[in-house]
């Protein structure tokens, strides 16, 4: 447990799929915050890096009853038998017991990509190229986050830089625990629909914990028992069915 925290947190998210319009602001906010470089000309959805990626699914109904939903997928921060941590030969992945966040240490990463194969959510990305920005744009990089080198895997870490900044701020005020809302990842802050709610799932009074207990909430691939900390919420049965158990061999219907 961190020296600055008296009780362990279990940070998680509740994402309201009925509010998400698929604008991509979460992806852009994430890329800005975490110094993810622009796509290389040769990058594809398979080789690109997007710590958070919004997929579009449809109800499969024929025209004109077709309907769509958007599902932001990010590291699910698995709390039980974390698949990526279990397979990493370099111990480059570890679950922080003080926060429940699955941390990735690129300095230790060997680039074997076992973790990518193990991740059931496809939420890990490999750096196929050196990070590059247009000339001069390096000046806009976030000083709280190091850039990653070619040959390592990276993923969402709930904006760890923001966690450190919030802890530092709390420490300057003589507090050891963070206040609700003091630490919010960039995607939750950027979402114009306020579809992403972030907080401590251990705090039963928090908004995110209440949403996680909501009858419309579910977790993706819950049957795997990974105890993920990303809860999704929808009142539409077809969205829930599609998100809980993605259809085999079916490409996502991207928008």
């Amino acid at each position, binding site marked *: 447990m961190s020296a600055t925290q008296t009780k362990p947190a279990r940070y998680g998210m509740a994402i309201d799929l009925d*509010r998400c*319009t*698929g*604008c*991509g*602001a979460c*992806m*852009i*906010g994430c*890329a*800005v915050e975490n*110094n*993810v470089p*622009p*796509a290389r000309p040769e*990058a594809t*959805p398979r080789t*690109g*890096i*997007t710590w958070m*990626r*919004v997929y*579009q699914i*449809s109800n499969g109904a024929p025209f*004109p009853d*077709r*309907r*769509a939903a958007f599902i932001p997928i990010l590291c699910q921060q698995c709390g039980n038998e974390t698949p990526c941590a279990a397979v990493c030969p*370099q111990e480059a992945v570890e679950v922080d017991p003080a926060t429940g966040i699955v941390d990735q240490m*690129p*300095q*230790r*990463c*060997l680039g074997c990509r076992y973790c990518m194969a193990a991740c059931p959510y496809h939420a890990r990305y490999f750096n196929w190229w*050196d*990070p*590059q*920005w*247009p*000339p*001069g*744009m*390096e*000046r*806009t*990089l976030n*000083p*709280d*986050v*190091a*850039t990653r*080198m070619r040959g*390592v895997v990276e993923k969402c870490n709930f904006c760890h830089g923001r966690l450190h900044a919030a802890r530092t701020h709390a420490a300057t005020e003589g507090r050891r625990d963070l206040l609700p809302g003091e630490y919010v990842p*960039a995607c939750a802050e*950027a*979402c*114009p*629909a306020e579809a992403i709610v972030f907080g401590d799932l251990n705090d039963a009074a928090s908004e995110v914990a209440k949403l996680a207990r909501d009858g419309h909430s579910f977790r993706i691939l819950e049957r795997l028992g990974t105890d993920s900390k990303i809860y999704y919420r929808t009142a539409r049965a077809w969205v829930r069915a599609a998100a809980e158990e993605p259809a085999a061999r079916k490409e996502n219907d*991207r*928008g």
Partner: protein
Amino acid sequence: MGFTRRDLLKFTGGSAAGLAFTPVPWRLLRDSALVSENWPGVPQPAQGEIRTRYTTCTLCPAACGVRARCVGDQPVSLAGVPGHPASHAALCTVGLVGHHLPFCGGRATRALANGRAVAIEQVLARVSAAIAQCGPDESVAILDARPGRAASQVYRRFLAGLDNGIYCAPPEAQPYGPFGIDLENTRAILSFGVPVLDGWLSPGRVLANRSHFQLIQVEADYSRTASLADLWVPVAAGDAAFAAAVAHALRGSGEDAHAADVARILGANQPAIAIGGGAGNLNAILDSVGRPGGFLRRRDYAPATDLAAVPDHSIQVLLAEESALPWSLLERKLATRNAVVVALTPWLDGYARHADYVIPAPLYLESLDEVATPAGSTAAGFSLSPALVAAPVGVMAPADFILRLAHDATSYADVLKQRVAALKKDGRGTVFTYSDAKSTRVQDIASTSDLWKTLLGGAAWVDDPVPQVSTGFPIPAAETGDPPLHSSPLMSKLERESGLRPARRYAI
């Protein structure tokens, strides 16, 4: 016995095999990773004092408040301002990376005459001469990309001093004329092709109210808005027959099943509005003008000439800010002989490609700018957009160019100060400050200087509501513009790496 070649090979092979059982190669791998993280090719974020500064987005007429996190003077991230009256706490994807624009290619940084660098004074002299030579049937036009600003008043004053001046603005810049939409109280929206959930008005305002209104999308495309609407009617948005069928159904007649569904939803969710080119007279039937939840009149509207209404081949001198209007439309209006086109633009690949002269304009965040009434707002508004980064040497604000063309010694900054002084003199409205999310009556601000400082530090002035009188209906106009000419390279995250489409059309 000597040391043979075979011994050397054995020693080398044995050493290599033995080394694999030691930590050395794995250590070296890790250490090389550490080194590679810091080698010269890997960009390092700049370090410095972290500051928060506030401004207002000028990239579209939504007028969103912006909180910029800066390292020294350089913004490193932009976010919305909680509680902002126009944008709530949101920015669109383009606005989130507005600070990347200076690093896009294709920037105009020098005045050009037919592609060759010249001094701005030379351009001024040549354009003045061209204006002086205009005949009685030839006109001088200014295309104002963002009408309603103090700069717009500069343009109007300049043109009023000429015999043949035409002030034009793109129709999507003032989509509802003198009306705004009381979205907070609307319960149903019948949209004829307007991308309500995909770049209409301010995304924060629309999405904050999304749970309060039913959305009916009339559109042939399976657009993002259509796919998320409560009811999608797959009919061409401009289909007058369907609008007529809805009108009939609202009056209790007609046999069209789709129209009956639409009428039932609109009837059950009042107040309701109809938007988009196909709306026709539906707002009259819905009685949606001048009442809460409908179209409300505001104070500041000044009509501009629709460029489409200008006679073809009548403009001798055109001064155009970069806008969404296609060049083909502008070209049709130009005189066939010796027409002079001046592009007031930050980019080389828009109107600049067709212009005789290019005046390089500063980009968003590079110079003190202003934002007029947010699109769709029911009250007049005004914000300053202070510069956060230095502009390249040689750029000039379009309003400054027009002021110099008019031989006016005042600067654009002076014009903005005059506008703020007028606000203080009128004493109407409130000022919402971004840093503390507080609203203060203009009357309670001590002086013009204090009001100027408040607006310069990040604030939005919002007018008082006006008494509503029934004076006609909004004339449907283009409610969306095209995507911006340039956006951050990070938008490739959406376009290329995820297959997600960015906003179909640009926010209006």
